[in-house]
Structure formats: structure tokens, C-alpha cells
């Protein structure tokens, strides 16, 4: 009997280390995210979740370790190849990070033009991109007329929707979500989660989301992992989050004061 072929994970991280001065933020993280999986990473503040995402995105250079996308090490690839690998990633920032010097429509159009690959012909003109931005705004539940507004005129939930529209502009096959429901009321949080799930499914993307919100984690993810002091201490199905059998994970997900995780005074 032959062994079934082992598929290469979409994202494979091995021995990732990152320290800022004497503070170790990532301490040998190993993580595989299979193609089509929505991985949710939970963990307390300062546990290294955002740094992990930023290392994959190339915003922070790790001290050691490997990050592979489709089996190719991003960290050692030539610059042009790194850019090409990362071009397939869409990112929704915690505060949406919309460009406040542009209108909402221009924000989304910027994503469309910036993420355009030369292999797909000449980039769309500004007018075409603005028209396409209107379609994307509709896709995230916003009226295209919102495109004329400035980001500062939008509520937090609307800004997240626009950020999502901009993130999906290039039809990314990897998507990152940095605390997508932070600062939103529970209903709007559920709406954003629903949009995220729809977008990820529609694009067939692989997703990584970091969050403190357990309801959101279970809505978005089908796999979950927990970071604690820069290490991955648990991985499993997202449905097991509230009953993982791991004392640290259970304390975190149920928000208990007592347990193995203690709040430390910052040194």
C-alpha cells in the first residue's frame, strides 16, 4: 500500500524567533496552515500574535527561522520573488488603516491598482478602478455612494468594511485579519465576521486571523492555535476552543482570573 502524497501547507513556519532588545517576542514558533484553512490565533496582549503576522508580511524581519509560502522560503528568496509571494496576501488591519488623504473609493481603487499583476494585462485606469471599487463596496454591504466620503466620516464598522474591500481588491489567496472585531459592538462584530467568512470562501483563500474575541474566533476559524510568551502552546479545531483540555487555553477562552496564566507586572 502506497503512502498518500503529503500536500505542502500554504504557509509553513519553522523555528521563528524575534526579540526586541532583551524582550523575546517569538520564541521558536512552528506553524502549518493548510490551503483553504482559516486559522485563528489567540493569545493575550503582548503574546506575539501581531509580530507573527508582521513577520509573515515582511513588515518585521525575524531574527531566525523560516517562513514558507507554497513551499518557498520567503525570507531567503530574492526581493522580487518576496514581493511576488507577498502580493497574494490581503490584510485587514485592526483599525482598518485607511489612507485618510484619499476618499473611501480611492482607498479601494488604490488596492485594485496596487495589487494588479502585470500578467493580467495593463492595470485599470483610475476611472475603471473607481468603478470596480464601487462593486467591491457593494460586496461588503456598503452603498457605492459611500466611495465619495472621507474615511473619517465613517463609523468603525464601516471603516472595517472598507478595509476588507481594499484587502480583497487583488483577489488574494491568503488573507490576514488583525483583531477584526476589536472596537465594534457585538452585532457589528458578527456582521464583519460574516463578511470575512463570505470573502474567504468566495476567494477560496487561506486565512489567518488574530483575535481576543472568542465568539469571533469560532465564527471565522476552522483551526485555532494559542500563543503564550512567544510560543505556540496549543493547536486544534476552532470548535474545541472553549473545551480544549489545555488548562491555559481554557483559562484564556473562559476569561478566568485563576489558573496557570498569571498577569505579570511589566518589567
Amino acid at each position, binding site marked *: 500500500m502506497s503512502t498518500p502524497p503529503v500536500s505542502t501547507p500554504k504557509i509553513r513556519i519553522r523555528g521563528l524567533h524575534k526579540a526586541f532588545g532583551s524582550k523575546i517576542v517569538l520564541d521558536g514558533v512552528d506553524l502549518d496552515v493548510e490551503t483553504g484553512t482559516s486559522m485563528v490565533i489567540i493569545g493575550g496582549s503582548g503574546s506575539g500574535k501581531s509580530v507573527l503576522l508582521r513577520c509573515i508580511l515582511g513588515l518585521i524581519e525575524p531574527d531566525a527561522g523560516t517562513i514558507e509560502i507554497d513551499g518557498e522560503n520567503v525570507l531567503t528568496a530574492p526581493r522580487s520573488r518576496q514581493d511576488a509571494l507577498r502580493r497574494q496576501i490581503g490584510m485587514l*488591519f485592526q483599525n482598518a488603516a*485607511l489612507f485618510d488623504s484619499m476618499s473611501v473609493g480611492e482607498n479601494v481603487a488604490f488596492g485594485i491598482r496596487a495589487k494588479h499583476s502585470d500578467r493580467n494585462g495593463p492595470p485599470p485606469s483610475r476611472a475603471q478602478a473607481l468603478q470596480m471599487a464601487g462593486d467591491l463596496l457593494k460586496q461588503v454591504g456598503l452603498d457605492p455612494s459611500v466611495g465619495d466620503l472621507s474615511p473619517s466620516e465613517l463609523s468603525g464598522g464601516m471603516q472595517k468594511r472598507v478595509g476588507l474591500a*481594499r484587502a480583497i481588491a487583488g483577489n488574494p489567496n491568503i488573507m490576514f485579519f488583525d483583531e477584526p472585531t476589536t472596537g465594534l459592538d457585538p452585532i457589528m462584530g458578527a456582521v464583519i465576521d460574516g463578511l470575512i467568512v463570505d470573502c474567504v470562501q468566495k476567494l477560496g483563500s487561506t486565512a489567518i486571523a488574530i483575535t481576543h474575541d472568542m465568539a469571533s474566533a469560532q465564527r471565522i476559524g476552522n483551526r485555532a492555535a494559542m500563543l503564550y510568551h512567544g510560543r505556540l502552546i496549543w493547536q486544534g479545531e476552532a470548535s474545541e476552543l472553549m473545551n480544549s483540555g489545555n488548562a491555559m487555553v481554557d483559562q484564556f477562552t473562559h476569561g478566568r482570573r485563576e489558573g496557570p496564566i498569571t498577569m505579570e507586572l511589566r518589567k
Partner: protein
Amino acid sequence: MNAVLDPIAALGRAALGLIKQAGALALFALEALSHLVRPPFYWRIFFSSLIETGFFSLPVVALTALFSGAVIALQSYVGFGQYHVQSAIAGIVVLAVTRELGPVLAGLMVAGRVGAAMSAQIGTMRVTDQIDALTTLSTNPMKYLVTPRLLAGTLALPCLVLVADILGVMGGFTVSVAKLGFSPSTYITATLDSLKTMDVVVGLVKAAVFGFLIALLGCYNGYNSRGGAEGVGSATTAAVVGASILLLLFDYLLTDLFFSQ
């Protein structure tokens, strides 16, 4: 022992910090300039920076130059009266304005207005993740935010200084004719006799250098700002103070280079 060594150590640390900062600034400038020859170039950002730096700074630079020329004429009249050489006023005004006051005052005004705005805008983008968002959208932030602004600053300030030169001379002319009783034709003749192409050209070269420095300090401090609103505020202060000091330092160096012989 420590009382002797500690101040020396502190001085050494400060010197090393200054050298490190100068090195970081030089590397930042080199990286930004390298994007000038590597497409794409963001023309829209360039033109909007050009308008912001050049056009919208016109009123403040114009008023500064006008009054400076007028004050020089007035002060020279009072001072030169003691030696009965009031006729030299036109020459003094045109020389002071084209060589020094035009470039330096326009530079300081633009540093306060545009350098601060650049630093605040880029700094806010840094602390609200907008610069990281640019990177995730396959856009090099240095190429997009810094390079067009450096070029715009370098080109806009000479244009402003040309206007400042004309208005500075006009300020001197107005006071001399309307208040001090000079004949308009005599004043204009004396001005044209004293006006040298070299003075104007050197003033414009100075202006280009000042414009580059103002944009560089604004972008550098904004780009490296940290820590929210307070960090952006500190970056803005550092941009204006740093640009003003560098501007005066380079004014001396360029004056020495062009006029010392």
C-alpha cells in the same frame, strides 16, 4: 575620578548619537533618491507636494520678503545716514535679499509650514498603520511617500525664492520712494547696477539645497515617529528644529563655497 570622566563620557555618547543620526539620515536620503531612477514614479504625489510646498507657501513667503526688504531699506537709511551714503541703500537691499534673506527667510518659513506638515502627515500614517498598509498593498512607502516630496521640495523652494527676491526688492523700493524720498528712476537704476546674476543663481542653488533639507527632515522624522500622538508631535518639532539648524549650517557652508574668494 567619575566627576572628571562622566562629562567626557556623556559628551562622547552625544557625539556618537549625533554621528549615528547623521548616518541614518544620509542612508534615508540615499534610499529615497535611488527611487528617482527606479520606476514607477508617483507623479500625483509629486504634483500635490509641489503645489502644497510652492503655491500654498507663496503668501507667507511673499509677505516675509516684502517686509524684510522694507526693513532693510529703513534700517540702512538710518545707519548709512551717519556716513552720508544713503545712495547705497538700493545696492544693499538687492544684495541682502538675493544672497541671504530671500533663500534663508523663505527656507525658514517653508520649514515651519511645510516641513512640519510633512512630518505630521507621514508620522500619523506611521502610527495608524497606514505605512504598513502601503507595504501590504505592494507599494514601497519610501518610493510613494518620500521620493516625490524630496523632489517637490527641491524644485519648489527656488521658485519661491525667485518671487521672494522680486518682492524683497519691491519692499525696499516702496519704502525708499514713498517714505525716504528717493527718486523711483534713481532707485531702479541703482538696483539694476548692483544686481548680479551670480548672486541670484547662488541664492537659487541655496534654495534648492534648503528645499531638499526641509523635505528630507520632514519625511525622515515623520517616517520614524513612534508612540502615537505624542510621538508625532515630537517628530514634527524635531523636523522643524532640525531643518532650521541644518538650513543655517548649509547657508554658511554654501556662502563660504561661493563667496569666500
